[in-house]
């Protein structure tokens, strides 16, 4: 492929992916030097049932245009300033759908997502939004909806954003920031950041920023903060924080729909979900789902302890600006309030829970903490089956924009994928830890809420209710 051959003189091509050799021809066309990530992206498309691809030529991709403007327009070698965008569909159709005056109705043809291909032989994969494979999709907690326009028709896809580094303007750390930044932009409405802006956000250290040889974890977290997503940094090897583990920290944020950056093996990648493998069995373990810009999207990590990048030494968690409190801090405060409430409220159910908590045969109850927007929390009350006396009290509570919800779970019910929440506390995510307050808590028989302005407390007696569904994005 040379400068003049990059974009043929036509609008688009429709590729029948069922034809033998279609995959090889795409890899040959776009990934001659670096085929691995491209192959994985195409394999992902195949795994979700893609049978047809529509390739848009002369596509003005904001991210690649920005990269070209900042870097590739300054090199001696000339690079095209346009990209190609490949859309995948699960229905089989040919170019006759596009040719002619009738509307193509792409939305009825099983849109599975897209990938932007850059005219960079060594790093073709740009912005990619592909649906997760069906076996992993229920466990991807950091998926969001993107909308594209193909020949005037709006198409939507739910996916976790992916991109690969170009090894010039960006390395793995920049790619992780782009993936997380684009996710937060689509999911929470934060600002969209282009690649050169991400590069500019990196605080200077020894050496040049562009071309980049790598970033320290400090630079990565500082960049995230400058991009409006202040990040928490956790050292997880050899000693995680007291009372915590890599699994607990990562899963807490993934449950909240917050992607997590991992630094391990001198590489950085993004966790976008996890699954419990063989729940309830002696060999139960957590398998993470990651986006690795050097390996492809939605890779299942069978055992993070024996991963190619082990040991995983750091976790970096970019969060919305108004989440001041970390998850482990919220869990300590919320759990203690729930323990106190369970001691104060004496009925059959609280006695049963106290007995479960004190059993010596392995923990029967555990705490789970999830950060959610208070709007989502309130609008999701019905879907979670929260009965009206409690739901009404929550709906009339004034809450901070973001709240931590600390839940007490029955572990046997959770393993059985049944509603398992026995009690919960709601914490203002902007509150000071010195206050050690919760906005509300609920235990069997009693609901209590507290107003920070008037410092008044209200209580409401509750009838017996069944365990509730969790507010977290996984399990029950």
């Amino acid at each position, binding site marked *: 492929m040379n400068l003049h051959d990059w974009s043929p003189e036509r609008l688009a091509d429709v590729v029948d992916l069922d034809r033998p050799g279609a995959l090889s021809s795409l890899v040959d066309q776009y990934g001659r030097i670096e085929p691995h990530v491209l192959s994985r992206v195409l394999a992902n498309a195949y795994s979700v049932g893609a049978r047809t691809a529509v390739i848009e030529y002369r596509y003005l991709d904001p991210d690649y245009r920005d990269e070209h403007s900042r870097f590739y327009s300054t090199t001696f070698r000339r690079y095209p300033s346009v990209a190609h965008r490949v859309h995948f569909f699960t229905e089989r159709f040919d170019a006759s759908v596009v040719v002619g005056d009738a509307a193509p109705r792409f939305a009825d043809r099983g849109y599975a997502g897209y990938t932007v291909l850059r005219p960079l032989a060594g790093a073709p994969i740009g912005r990619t939004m592909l649906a997760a494979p069906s076996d992993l999709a229920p466990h991807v907690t950091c998926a969001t909806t993107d909308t594209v326009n193909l020949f005037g028709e709006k198409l939507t896809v739910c996916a976790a954003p992916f991109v690969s580094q170009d090894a010039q303007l960006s390395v793995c750390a920049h790619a992780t920031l782009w993936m997380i930044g684009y996710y937060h932009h689509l999911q929470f409405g934060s600002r969209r950041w282009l690649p050169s802006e991400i590069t500019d956000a990196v605080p200077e250290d020894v050496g040049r920023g562009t071309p980049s040889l790598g970033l320290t974890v400090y630079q990565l977290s500082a960049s995230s903060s400058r991009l409006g997503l202040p990040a928490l940094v956790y050292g997880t090897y050899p000693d995680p924080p007291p009372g915590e583990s890599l699994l607990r920290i990562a899963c807490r944020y993934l449950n909240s729909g917050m992607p997590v950056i991992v630094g391990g093996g001198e590489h950085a990648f993004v966790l976008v979900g996890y699954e419990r493998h063989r729940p309830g069995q002696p060999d139960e373990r957590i398998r993470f789902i990651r986006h690795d810009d050097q390996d492809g999207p939605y890779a299942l990590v069978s055992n993070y302890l024996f991963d190619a990048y082990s040991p995983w030494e750091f976790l970096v968690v970019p969060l919305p600006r108004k989440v001041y409190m970390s998850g482990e801090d919220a869990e300590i405060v919320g759990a203690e309030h729930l323990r106190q409430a369970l001691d104060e409220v004496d009925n059959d159910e609280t006695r049963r829970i106290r007995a479960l908590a004190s059993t010596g045969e392995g923990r029967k109850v555990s705490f789970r903490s999830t950060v959610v927007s208070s709007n989502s929390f309130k609008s999701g009350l019905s879907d979670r089956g929260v009965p009206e006396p409690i739901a009404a*009290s929550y709906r009339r509570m004034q809450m901070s924009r973001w709240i931590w919800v600390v839940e007490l779970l029955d572990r046997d019910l959770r393993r059985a994928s049944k509603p398992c929440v026995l009690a919960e506390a709601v914490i203002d995510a902007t509150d000071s830890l010195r206050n050690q307050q919760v906005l509300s808590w609920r235990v069997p028989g009693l609901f209590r809420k507290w107003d920070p302005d008037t410092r008044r407390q209200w209580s409401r007696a509750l009838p017996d209710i069944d365990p509730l569904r969790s507010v977290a994005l996984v399990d029950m």
Partner: protein
Amino acid sequence: MAKARRYLLEEYATPVPAALVGDGEQTDAAGDDAGALSPERAVRVAQQLRELDQARQRAEAGSRDYQVS
């Protein structure tokens, strides 16, 4: 203007209380101790939070030397 606003509120507005007073919720405490942890629990929580804070500071210090690419 303020007088007109008061008139409007008194004549036409029905206040929505923060609590469902009269329908199940009742005020049962007020002041600095309302909703607080007991002193023993508060001390325990403060200690745990301090330890986590120290661990975070160690992690941030260590992050300056760990490069990814």
